[in-house]
């Protein structure tokens, strides 16, 4: 008997026989505010992210004046390093700022969703030192459960919520941004 057959046989033989129905998922609603954009921005900051009012150009000029290598995966903005599918990640390792676009945002947690198609090379969102993310303010859903009703998780091979930048507080609880991934995450509403 293969491992697969043995495991499945054991599982089928041992799984509890009582009635355990799969519950319907009720709809929960945001309490206290209807301003999803405001709540998104507040929670984004709480997770260590920030936002810039203005366009991507002014964002980079103001926040990253010394950036040398800028990679963009969005048509609206040209960097000076192109990102190809199947690029060897070593060729992304010196990127100072990467610019990309989120599929949508989530007000409850200040999260944005990045997907493979938009990222072109998934690793760019982690190897760059800083990440700038365009987000359509009309594409912010109130809650995480609303997010999981969307089609992205059925269509994309890779989809990742970013809630602020890479972070760790593994040593004595001292919070540090840029543990392994990006040191900062900036959202530009556009």
């Amino acid at each position: 008997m293969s491992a697969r057959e043995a495991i499945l046989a054991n599982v089928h033989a041992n799984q509890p026989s009582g009635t355990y129905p799969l519950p319907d998922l009720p709809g929960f609603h945001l309490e206290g505010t209807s301003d999803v954009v405001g709540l998104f921005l507040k929670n984004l900051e709480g997770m260590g992210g920030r936002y810039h009012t203005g366009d991507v150009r002014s964002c980079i000029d103001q926040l990253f004046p010394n950036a040398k290598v800028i990679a963009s995966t969005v048509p609206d903005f040209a960097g000076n390093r192109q990102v190809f599918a199947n690029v060897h990640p070593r060729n992304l390792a010196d990127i100072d700022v990467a610019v990309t676009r989120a599929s949508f945002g989530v007000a409850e947690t200040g999260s944005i969703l990045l997907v493979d198609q938009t990222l072109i090379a998934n690793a760019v969102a982690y190897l760059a030192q800083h990440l700038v993310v365009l987000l359509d303010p009309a594409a912010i859903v109130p809650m995480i459960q609303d997010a999981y009703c969307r089609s992205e998780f059925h269509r994309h091979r890779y989809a990742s919520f970013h809630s602020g930048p890479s972070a760790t507080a593994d040593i004595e609880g001292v919070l540090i941004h840029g543990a392994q991934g990006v040191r900062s995450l900036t959202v530009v509403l556009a």
Partner: protein
Amino acid sequence: MTLSKEPRRDDDGLPALLHTELRASDDKGAKGPAGQRLIHAEATSRPLRDAMPEPQPRGAKIHRHRPIDHNEAARRFIDAPHHEKMHDERLWDLRQKRDGQMHAIPEWEELRELASEIKQHTLAHLGDYLEQFETQALANGIHVHWAQDGAEHNRIVHSILADHGAKRLIKSKSMLTEETGMRHYMAGVGIEVIETDLGERIQQLDNEDPSHIVVPAVHKLRSDVADVFAKKLGTDPRNDDVHYLAEQQREKTRPLILDADAGMTGANFAVAETGSFVVCTNEGNADLSANVPPLHIASIGIEKLIPRIADLGVFIRLLSRSALGSPMTQYTSHFRGPRSGAEMHIVLVDNGRSARLGEPEFWQSLKCIRCGACMNTCPVYRRSGGLSYGATYSGPIGLILDPTFDRRRYSSLPFASTLNGSCSNVCPVKINIHEQIFAWRKALSESHDISTSKHAMMKVAGVVLSNPRLYRAAIATAESALKILPNFVVANPLNSWTRRGRNMPNPVTETFHQWYERTKGGKEDRL
């Protein structure tokens, strides 16, 4: 003893520190745009004073044929006051942050109930869901492997690596690969394994197991990390600045990530509907491990299944809030297939799970989503450190998981508990942890897997404790569970936890059942 419904608060409005001497005024942690202190991820609510250097107490001594002596290792941890206080404070702070998140979500109790019901349903139909998951994953172009135990898992991973000529594997944290002893195995066959989570990397470099399932190096002080890094990474031994240490790890790990042949992750959830799996981290290291090398292997315990993508709307809302008191992990990543030009493999691992599924008293432990909330709240865990359990899983969840792997070696662990019920109370999937701990005491006693002294103790306590009605009655007539329990369980001279004049952990002011009545099942939980 008066019943306090509000937590004691300091003048900054936050719940009072357990150890006021740890309070610091200078704040070295990351700040928000307006200069405000940030407390997401595993950051502490308020700055703590830099800990004083002190030799690090090591974990339980492992003897091949003898049960783990948790008490002996716990005693050494308590004898290192700087370690013990920082540990106690940080974990209690995570518990307080969790409470803060819980209060902000009116439907919290409903979410816990839903999470429990979804997991129960999935486990009761696990065979079908595993097959559905496999079918979907294969259709998405993922290679699916099955491993009956840890050894088979390690062999499969090795053979995948060998097929690709891979020599260096970068990985994110996985409790499952701790279970299977994968790093040790790979060292024996010449595969270099690099942990990429900061805490886990510290533990790897120090040849120690993770002491906590979410914050693996929480038992260490900055001076301990500086020592390890100086020896293993060549950093400045006199510099124990946390920013310096974290940056050194980033800089030294990055080249290893870029040149790795393969990457490995675990999984927090596996979704039958889509054949996809979800990995949650704060550092983004799982995404690097999965997206940089051309080969991604994910090790997944068969109990990680959930039926639908929409179910993630329940579990993701609970996971990080329960674990760290942070609304969400920084990264929550969904893998549904290999990226273009790369390969993806999944190893579905049993390692005792299918057998546990058939144990009426213990199968619900398979609902566990590995958040660590039970550890953070447990007075015994906070005071003794995770390594004192000498097992893959420590704290309350460890007490009920470890004996399933080796009932003799871990026979004393179910006694490392006050049975105060706090673990069950904070569990996001409503596992009856403290009841299972007691059930394990009984089971181990009946099969004579416990020592004579513990056996005698069980006899005294057994009559009352084995009868829930009698037990509740006994407790309700006293001021608190802890105050009555010591009479026949805790302060019994046979229990070495209270030997040597050590105080029992904070006594609870009411019983679990009284608490449940008062707070409507935790909706208004205040200590």
